[in-house]
């Protein structure tokens, strides 16, 4: 369970560029919730995900995940509990390292890294099987440098890496926004499959209203650094794109 308790974040305080990005935001996620997050540009969606991930400290409030208080932890320590996929396909993988090396790094997320070998033989076989599921032919290119892959392939790989070690919370920050429609659909389909298979608690930011309705069991709208709409279950199923756009213009 994720509890976000009235978190505040102001960027560039005391300057002309001062901007309140999170304005006492409250949010509780139950285990297994797959929440789609919508909201206008600058509404605070990405800021919310980054605050949870620890990219920056929040000004006040607390973030508690399954009883662990994440609020004061640095980003790399929170990584133990979180799987993340970013909007920019370049951000989630190490381009100069092989596919299999990237996966081995992800498999040790949150573990102490010592002088044991970075990859074992068994891992090679395991990753081969996992890459097959993606159906992108990556299993035949395991020793290729990730920098040679397309944006879609990198994003699919990042997704696989984020869930290689089951995270307590999966954060998808507009992870299909930079992809062409066909690839975006494919990556989204893989995301849905991975989330369902592992029944992961997930937050997914999207600008596509249809996706926001079709995926997940719950939908929230963020505006002005607060959650302004929160629907789930049947109510969410019944939502239409037109209603959502209507809700947007009413804010």
């Amino acid at each position, binding site marked *: 369970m994720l509890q976000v308790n009235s978190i505040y974040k102001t960027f560039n305080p005391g300057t002309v560029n001062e901007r309140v990005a999170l304005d006492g935001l409250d949010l509780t996620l139950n285990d297994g919730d797959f929440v789609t997050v919508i909201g206008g540009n600058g509404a605070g969606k990405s800021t919310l995900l980054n605050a949870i991930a620890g990219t920056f400290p929040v000004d006040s409030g607390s973030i508690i995940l399954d009883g662990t208080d994440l609020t004061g932890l640095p980003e790399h320590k929170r*990584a133990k509990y979180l799987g993340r996929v970013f909007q920019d396909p370049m951000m989630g993988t190490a381009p100069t390292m092989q596919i299999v090396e990237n996966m081995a790094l992800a498999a040790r997320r949150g573990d102490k890294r010592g002088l044991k070998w970075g990859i074992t033989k068994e891992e090679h076989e395991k990753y081969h099987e996992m890459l097959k599921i993606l159906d992108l032919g990556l299993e035949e290119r395991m020793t290729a440098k990730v920098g040679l892959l397309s944006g879609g392939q990198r994003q699919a790989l990042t997704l696989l890496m984020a869930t290689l070690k089951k995270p307590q919370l999966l954060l998808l920050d507009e992870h299909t926004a930079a992809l062409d429609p066909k690839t975006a659909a494919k990556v989204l389909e893989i995301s849905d499959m991975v989330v369902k298979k592992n029944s992961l608690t997930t937050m997914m930011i999207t600008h596509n209203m249809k996706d926001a309705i079709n995926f997940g069991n719950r939908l929230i709208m963020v505006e002005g650094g607060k959650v302004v709409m929160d629907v789930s279950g049947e109510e969410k199923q019944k939502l239409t794109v037109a209603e959502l756009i209507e809700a947007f213009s009413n804010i």
Partner: protein
Amino acid sequence: MNVLGALFSALPGAVAQGLVWGIMAIGVYVTFRILDIADLTVDGSLATGGATCVMLIRLGLNPWLALLCAVASGVIAGLVTGLFITKCGIPPILAGILTQLSLYSINLRIMESKSNQAVSVDKYSLLASQRYVRDFSILNPLVLLTVLLLILMILLYMFFGTELGSAVRATGTNQNMARAQGINTKFNTVLGLMLSNGLVAMSGALLAQYQGSADVNMGRGAIVIGLAAVIIGEVLFGKIFRNFFLKMLAVVLGAVIYYIVLQIVLQMGLNTNDLKMLTAILVAVFLSIPYWKGMLDAKKAGAKKEGK
């Protein structure tokens, strides 16, 4: 013919110098290529290694132990630069310059305020000395340097294959990704800098023994020579040497080739004072080639499109 003869007799010395600088160049490779930082600390830590080693040998310490202490001095220098970057938020280039500058004073202190301190192979059993570089004997520095380099390369190859070594590599290639995978990028940056400067100081210690003295200016422009070795190695062997061990070998060969070419141009009557400038031009040109090539390719691609 006379020139060729002179060159031939100068060849073993050039190779030995190349091997000593090869260790330094591997250190530069660790920061420049793996960590993606141009670390200017090395200009200072090379001389620190030399000074520490020479002074300790003069005090009667075993040369191997003195070498080890020299490495430690370099590791500390790397630590300081690393802390400047990660704890003080100073940009890497400036952090390196600051450490390098302060090392100049520290090196003078180590050398008891003299700019040069000799260590004679007559008085001490040095690990590597210029004197035996043309001899057929176990004392020939080429033997020790080759063995030492092989051991170092094997150890480094193994280290960068471990979990920790992989974390250093990930930190250098994508910090966002590294942090998202739970890697402490600050720690790994510092670790990489310590490792690199340890190697550089080892090179400085061997260089001082080889030359028979440590000089406070021996590290001036070292970063550029290291980069020259890295780049020559990559240009000449980049296409064939793919794995990390061979990449390190390419860097060492780059250093050796650099010193052989240097000997040739010196034999041709070049003024030694112009060397640093020539090295700088060489590095500048080779660093520019990928950029120019990119521009040219973009132009070609554009022309193709228009032609269609």
